[in-house]
């Protein structure tokens, strides 16, 4: 076994400001093995691996590569040691071609020989059955193509250690299967593979060994064949947790939104939504599934009045109110009518929150127009900020402390808390639990369910199909801007939704279930 050890991390620690991201972690990585690094969001998995890939340098501790002490101060050092990492957010230059991306940063002759590069890429593609055109620009590629390109990049550099950070987050079940086959193939070639994940079923399916991190500390490792999901969860969370989400039956569902033939064309002239029709009911959670970029963002934004609508209607019926068409109304009018949007974008602060302001300032985003005359009103937002801080346990030194400096989970609590506080009759959220730990995620799920029981129509765009299937009453599946079907959350299966995510089945719209 000793000869097989590719990398050893000994007593590694890393601190960011006041946050101890990794504390005294020791870990071994072996050749010809798939190791799964398991832990909740914020448990320090990515930070730990970033110390192998040269993004961070450990504050304390030592790294050994093939038994020799190594100092990895930059990604270049890491590549020299044969370590390649595929980051969650792809590191690709979108205006360059696939081949140009592959040779980025490599040493070699001054003048580029793109033919030779293409030849070598084709070789790798044949070896692992990839299908990538070396001359294709990255901005023309699909998510899964980009990921393949990332893997080619690492293989081109002859890496023996491959680290993948949440590689399946953006893939369909079918694409995930294909990726796993490739990884198994690489294991056969004697490469050491680390996959960072928080999805237990992936660990069970793919990995040989699992190492668990919790709050930055190493809590133990298990051989996958000797364990089960419940044991792993307990290790990950530190105590026994119930994995079930409470899903009460909808009470007296009434129609809130009736969307017919919604079509949206974006700035570049691309059709992002194509004749989308569905209804959202008060008292139920409508899940929206789909590959990233299938039109989820545009759908929510169209309802919220942030996207110009080409054609179609959005009939909104508030509780005890007259129906009205939201198309053509301003975002402010729609909001005041009771339609709330809690959109959590990839960078969290890009939309919905103002990073440089404190909680109070961010509460004002909802109420800034309410003050008398030309001045803003401060006391209500201050009270609301205090309340949310208290109720959702937001960790902040002060409600005027810039939210940019809060941790991801706390930022999200501020955002979701504020949206719920407006007591909307339609509540839309996208990626509301992205980057949250399990406990906070469940807090958010429960908040959604509470809203539902209050009679709100909840629209929940999610990434994790398991969660969607446990939380939602109905699930709408988007494919390339079209509705490929609406299924019952209680009876549908993951495979069924996965298939719908990759090909268009229905004829655009809801056919009475």
């Amino acid at each position, binding site marked *: 076994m000793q000869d097989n050890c590719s990398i050893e991390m000994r007593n590694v620690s890393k601190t*960011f400001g006041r946050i101890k991201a990794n504390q005294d972690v020791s870990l071994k990585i072996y050749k010809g093995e798939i190791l799964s690094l398991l832990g909740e969001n914020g448990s320090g998995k990515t930070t730990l691996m970033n110390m192998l*890939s*040269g*993004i*961070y340098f450990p504050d304390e501790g030592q790294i050994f590569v093939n038994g020799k002490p190594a100092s990895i101060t*930059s*990604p*270049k050092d*890491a*590549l020299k040691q044969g370590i390649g*990492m595929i*980051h969650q957010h792809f*590191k*690709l*230059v*979108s*205006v*360059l071609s696939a081949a*140009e991306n592959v*040779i*980025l*940063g*490599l040493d*070699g*002759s*001054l*003048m*580029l020989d793109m033919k030779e590069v293409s030849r070598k890429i084709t070789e790798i593609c044949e070896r692992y059955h990839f299908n990538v055109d070396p001359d294709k*620009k990255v*901005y023309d590629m699909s998510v899964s193509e980009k990921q393949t390109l990332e893997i080619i*990049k690492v293989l081109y550099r002859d890496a023996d250690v491959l680290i993948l950070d949440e590689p399946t987050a953006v893939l369909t079940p079918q694409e995930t299967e294909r990726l796993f086959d490739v990884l198994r193939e690489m294991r056969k070639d004697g490469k050491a593979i680390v996959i960072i994940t928080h999805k237990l079923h992936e660990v069970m399916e793919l990995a040989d060994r699992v190492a668990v991190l919790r709050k930055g500390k190493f809590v133990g490792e298990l051989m996958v064949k000797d364990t089960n999901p419940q044991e792993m969860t307990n290790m990950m969370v530190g105590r026994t947790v119930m994995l079930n989400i409470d899903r009460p039956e909808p009470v007296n569902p009434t129609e809130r939104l009736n969307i017919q033939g919604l079509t949206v064309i974006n*700035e*570049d002239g691309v059709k992002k939504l194509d004749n989308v029709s569905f209804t959202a009911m008060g008292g139920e959670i409508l899940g929206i599934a789909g590959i990233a970029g299938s039109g989820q963002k545009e759908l929510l934004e169209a309802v919220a009045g942030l996207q110009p609508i080409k054609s179609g209607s959005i009939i909104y019926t508030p509780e005890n109110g007259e129906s009205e068409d939201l198309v053509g109304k301003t975002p402010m009018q729609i909001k005041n009518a009771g339609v709330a949007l809690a959109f959590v974008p990839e960078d969290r602060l890009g939309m919905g929150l103002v990073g440089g302001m404190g909680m109070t300032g961010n509460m004002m985003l909802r109420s800034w127009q309410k003050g008398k005359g030309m001045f803003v009103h401060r006391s209500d937002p201050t009270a609301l900020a205090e309340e949310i801080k208290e109720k959702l346990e937001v960790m902040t030194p002060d409600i005027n402390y810039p939210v940019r400096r809060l941790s991801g989970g706390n930022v999200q609590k501020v955002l979701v808390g504020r949206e719920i506080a407006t007591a909307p009759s339609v509540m839309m959220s996208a990626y509301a639990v992205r980057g949250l730990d399990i406990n906070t995620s469940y807090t958010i799920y429960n908040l959604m369910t509470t809203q539902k029981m209050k009679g709100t129509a909840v629209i929940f765009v999610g990434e994790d199909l398991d969660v969607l299937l446990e939380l939602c009453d109905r699930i709408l599946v988007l494919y390339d801007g079209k509705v490929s079907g609406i299924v019952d959350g209680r009876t549908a299966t993951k495979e069924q939704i996965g298939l719908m995510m990759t090909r268009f089945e229905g004829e655009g719209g809801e056919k009475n279930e």
Partner: protein
Amino acid sequence: MNTIVSLLYNAVLNGTPLMFGTMGEVLTEKSGNLNLGVEGMMYMGGAIGLAGAFYYEKMAGSAANGIVAILIALLLAFIAGAIGALIFSFITISMRANQNVTGLALTIFGTGVGQFIGEYMRTKEGGYVVVGNGLKNFFQASPFPKALQDIPVAGKLIFGHNIFVYLGIIIAVIMAIYMNRTRFGLNLRAVGESPATADAAGINVTRYKYLATVIGGGISAIGGMVYIMTIAGCVWNHEGLAGEGWLAVALVIFCLWKPISAMWGSTLFGALLIMYLRVRLPIPSEIYKILPYVVTVAVLIITSLRKKKENQPPESLGLSYFREDR
């Protein structure tokens, strides 16, 4: 016919300082740095280049060699601009300050340095600082034999320019090859587009940014020297460079960050700058002189209307990079 030849010839002459300014800024911006201090760096290059040639002539007396004078002026101007760009780089790359404001600060500082040196020389040398006619000729005359220059039309347009025109063309071609055909050029483009990607690929982002910005600043500053030594007649006057540096920044957008286009673009603007002298129109000359700035505005508007992927500025232009940003 003669008017057109003369207009073209003078367009090239007046466009040359712009060409250097633009090419330097193209290199800088390709690394993701938006250095608005071009005007300042060109001032520094102009004043220090002039000082170099002037004091060299003063020391060497009648033995002064034109080629040596040109080399001294080139080198000093380059160094002056490089120092300005180095200050900018340190503050924006290492200290991660706002690039817009730092660039403006460099403009204030650089124009100050330029004016200061100009005035200082004037007071020190008792009135007038001008390079002698012998040397002046080296800066302003064509390096080609007279026989070539005497070829009708083509002689003047191809062989009749001062040496800096040809130097500029050589630099433009080298830059184009560097950016599009070499490994380092590819890496540089990646740094400007997405420093995080470049970093993860093992490219030393800081080094590329520093080098591109400092060399770019040096090239821009040569433009200032060329302006003073050719168009302004080897003398420092109070007008300084009259906004040439800012036109260069605008030209970078016009040229879509391509060095070869910088040649055409700067010639076009050179033509606009002198048109009021060459092409009579029934409008007052003071209004006519506004033309290049109006055209620049038009160019800015037109470029903002076109949205092709390849024609966009480097994606991370103007942003500082911190690896551990989370």
